């Protein structure tokens, strides 16, 4: 994915200038068509972020377009408010309604969400058509033209420039956001648990993305109202909402350029079918909808990731020839180091688990388990498969709530904390089943771990005011990658790494958060002998540095040689605790691992 966003501003600007100038010569029909493509691009861009990247499917975007359009239409006609003021009011109204709807429906998980969006999409459409002051189904006419320092933007050609300047700005802003701290968080939203463990407040970011998409839609609606100079409910129906989703998916739902391609292809296709088919097949029946549907199916069968990846594959060799080095993203250069967390005192209790219990139905996965992790030590948590080790990890990191007992971090009860709050306190973890964003580079994955060490939000990212902080975060990520031995793989897509390297990448990501306690779930699985030794050296260095480590591992040689103390679990309970040498001789442990001698 990274390869799609190389920085080639000069080419972008040139292309953009060409598009703007083209507006002078194109026949009016095409200018109008391009106007609409620009408007649809705005809405689809929001969907790219919301649906394609964050994985939240919305059928309701057309309703937000309607909110922007109707707010401006009503206020400019009924109260003669300037369209520039109604733009702000429209965005405000949309933001408030989107916040309420988002709060209500984004809590719906998975497949509930599309239905929720259908519900409010239909309701808002229905309101537009049934509120008398909005003109019912006939709508509102005589909306004033836009006034630009005394100059009226009246004709479609003048609107063309305005629309495409706005669309290009939105495109650049969206691309900037994706390539930033909040962007990484958004790209991690689909992998909820992992994002939370990196300190991303998933619920909050879902709302933020939803709001962003709604505001882009509202902006498109405002432009639409003043381009058309009249509004009625039809373009804001559920059908239109579905069409926006078509555009996003056909274009390539996770790519900003996909929004332009999708909007263009769908708009041109529909126009073309409406022109051609009646001539070929006669007026009866509505053939264009049939052919349109069939073409969509065929397109997705050929290119299920949308058209942009196909276009990009075609363009890449050309771009590589014209702009040398354009597709390689370089690791950030030197930057000021990030502030580090104060380390706990060596030997003092950092993490205390007291009588923790967790049941799944009738199964006691963890049953009254207690242990303590001290500052600057490595505690090994071992036990046969199914002993409840990973569940214990989930309890400490807040992925699962405790049934009873408590967990104290430096004296503070964190039993009821959410995952991202726990991450913020300085507990970082890796996962038994590797959880990485496979399309992001190793560097970006590691930078995700440093999420809480930055503060840049969407607006700063969109305007590229976050570059200093971004350089710091990437430099930190680069250092941790190098520490984990992955320095050479910084630009590789995480999904292309070998499984062992992916585990190391998870460790680098956890380290990027500068944790006081590092919890590793089977870090040595899938590593070769030399890699294991390098990992052991790294963990020892971290311990010497004052970090506390909690280690779940099946490789006995590895864990025995590394841990200061071991806790052995069986059937959710503590079987034994002590130094590695003691555990080695403990009859109960031998029994559990090797089976009893009758």
């Amino acid at each position: 994915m990274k390869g799609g966003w190389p920085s080639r501003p000069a080419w972008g600007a040139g292309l953009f200038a060409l598009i703007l100038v083209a507006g002078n010569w194109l026949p009016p029909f095409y200018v109008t068509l391009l106007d609409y493509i620009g408007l649809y691009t705005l809405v689809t861009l929001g969907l790219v972020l919301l649906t394609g990247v964050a994985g939240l499917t919305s059928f309701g975007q057309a309703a937000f377009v309607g909110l922007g359009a109707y707010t401006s239409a009503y206020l400019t006609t009924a109260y003669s408010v300037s369209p520039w003021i109604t733009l702000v009011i429209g965005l405000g109204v949309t933001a408030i309604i989107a916040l309420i709807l988002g709060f209500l429906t984004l809590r719906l998980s998975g497949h509930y969400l599309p239905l929720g969006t259908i519900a409010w999409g239909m309701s808002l459409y229905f309101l537009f058509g049934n509120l008398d002051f909005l003109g019912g189904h006939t709508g509102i006419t005589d909306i004033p033209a836009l006034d630009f320092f005394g100059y009226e933007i009246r004709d479609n050609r003048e609107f063309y420039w305005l629309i495409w300047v706005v669309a290009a700005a939105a495109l650049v802003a969206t691309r900037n956001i994706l390539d930033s701290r909040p962007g990484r968080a958004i790209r991690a939203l689909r992998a909820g648990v992992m994002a939370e463990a990196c300190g991303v407040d998933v619920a909050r970011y879902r709302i933020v993305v939803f709001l962003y998409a709604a505001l882009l839609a509202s902006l498109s609606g405002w432009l639409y109202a003043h381009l058309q100079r009249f509004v009625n409910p039809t373009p804001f129906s559920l059908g239109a909402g579905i069409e926006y989703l078509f555009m996003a998916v056909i274009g390539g739902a996770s790519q900003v350029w996909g929004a332009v391609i999708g909007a263009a292809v769908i708009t041109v296709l529909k126009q073309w079918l409406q022109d051609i088919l009646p001539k070929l097949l006669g007026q009866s029946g509505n053939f264009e909808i049939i052919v349109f549907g069939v073409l969509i199916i065929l397109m997705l069968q050929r290119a299920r990731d949308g058209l942009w990846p196909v276009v990009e594959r075609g363009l890449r060799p050309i771009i590589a020839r014209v702009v040398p080095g354009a597709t390689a993203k370089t690791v950030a250069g030197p930057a000021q180091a990030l502030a580090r967390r104060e380390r706990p005192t060596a030997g003092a209790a950092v993490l205390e688990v007291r009588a923790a219990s967790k049941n799944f139905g009738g199964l006691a996965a963890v049953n009254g388990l207690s242990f303590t992790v001290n500052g600057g030590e490595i505690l090994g948590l071992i036990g046969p498969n199914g002993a409840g080790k990973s569940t214990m990890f989930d309890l400490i990191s807040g992925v699962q709530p405790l049934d009873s007992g408590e967990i104290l971090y430096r004296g503070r009860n964190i039993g009821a904390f959410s995952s991202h709050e726990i991450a913020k306190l300085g507990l970082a973890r890796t996962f038994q089943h590797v959880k990485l964003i496979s399309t992001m580079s190793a560097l970006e994955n590691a930078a995700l771990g440093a999420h809480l060490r930055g503060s840049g939000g969407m607006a700063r990212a969109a305007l590229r005011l976050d570059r200093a902080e971004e350089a710091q975060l990437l430099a930190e990520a680069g250092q941790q990658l190098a520490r984990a031995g992955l320095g050479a793989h910084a630009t590789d897509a995480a999904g292309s790494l070998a499984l062992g390297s992916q585990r190391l990448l998870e460790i680098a990501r956890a380290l990027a958060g500068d944790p006081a306690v590092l919890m590793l779930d089977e870090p040595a699985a899938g590593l070769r002998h030399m890699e294991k030794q390098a990992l052991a050296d790294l963990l020892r260095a971290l311990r010497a540095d004052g970090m506390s480590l909690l280690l779940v591992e099946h490789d006995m040689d590895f864990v025995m040689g590394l841990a200061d103390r071991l806790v052995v679990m069986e059937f959710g309970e503590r079987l034994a605790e002590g130094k590695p040498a003691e555990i080695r001789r403990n009859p109960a442990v031998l029994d559990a691992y090797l089976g009893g001698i009758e």
Partner: protein
Amino acid sequence: MNLQIALLLGQDGLTNGAIYALLALALVLVFTVTRVIFIPQGEFVAYGALTLASLQVGAVPGTLWLLLGASILVCIAEIATAIRKRALRAIPRLLALYLAAPALLGLATWWLAPLKPPMPLQVLLTLALVVPLGPLLYRLAYQRLASASVLVLLIVSVAVHLVLSGLGLLFFGAEGSRTPAFSDQVLDIGTLRFSAQSLWVIGASGCLVAALGWFFGRTLYGKALRATAINRVGARLVGISTTLAGKLSFTLAALIGASSGVLIAPITTVYYDSGFLIGLKGFVAAIIGGLASYPIAAGGALLVGLLEAYSSFWASAFKEVIVFTLIIPVLLWRSLGKRQIEEEE
């Protein structure tokens, strides 16, 4: 509102609810087996009802042309696959299945339709024409995309819905149809009056649910589908092919849809585009069941049916909005039940 009206609305709600329950079952089945959110489910209802209506006026239903066209396309696709795999021996079987059988069915329809056969035969013919569309559709639209994301499958579903509703307009015209009731009797219990048709609907739905229960609980194919629904990869590893499971679940979905259409044809006027809203309400019911639990989905369906019946009395213009908006609290209640941050596949 007096008791009489309340009970009448209740009866209406239960009848519609029974249909939504059937559709919800089909949607849950298709989703769990194939991950397809099957928006076109409603089109099968409309096709079932309108095909029956065509047969009743003695016309050859347009569904036949769709069936023949789809069969020919599938036949070409399957033969191409067979040639590529050098499995030439399969070709006669493919020809028999995708060309001879539909052609025979076509001839039978051609001959029977103008004779206006008795009602049970019409119903059978309707099912024979509509149900095969399910697996054909799976082969043409979904099979290649079986491993695509839920979002892509959803978009394909919407596209299929557009195609089918466009074809519906072509085949059946813009006017709605209503067929005569299976029987005109009414049943009086005290002050209550049940129309025989709503008893038919509720009874037939019950039978269909029972039959499905038997199919899933007792037959090998049913168990194979259940296995696929629970664990797709695991099912494939023990030799249950994704394609077979997909076709089978689409066949059942088409059967359920077409049967629902036949059942409601005498109660409401069905238009070529009625299916979407009916299907959407089935979808609402299925969602209440979390797209996973059949009994809860059936309960949700009855809730939707009743909600619709009573809201059409109080505020008929707002009927659809009420049904869809009141669903949000239910969904919220369901998803608040568990504290979780889910993972997408």
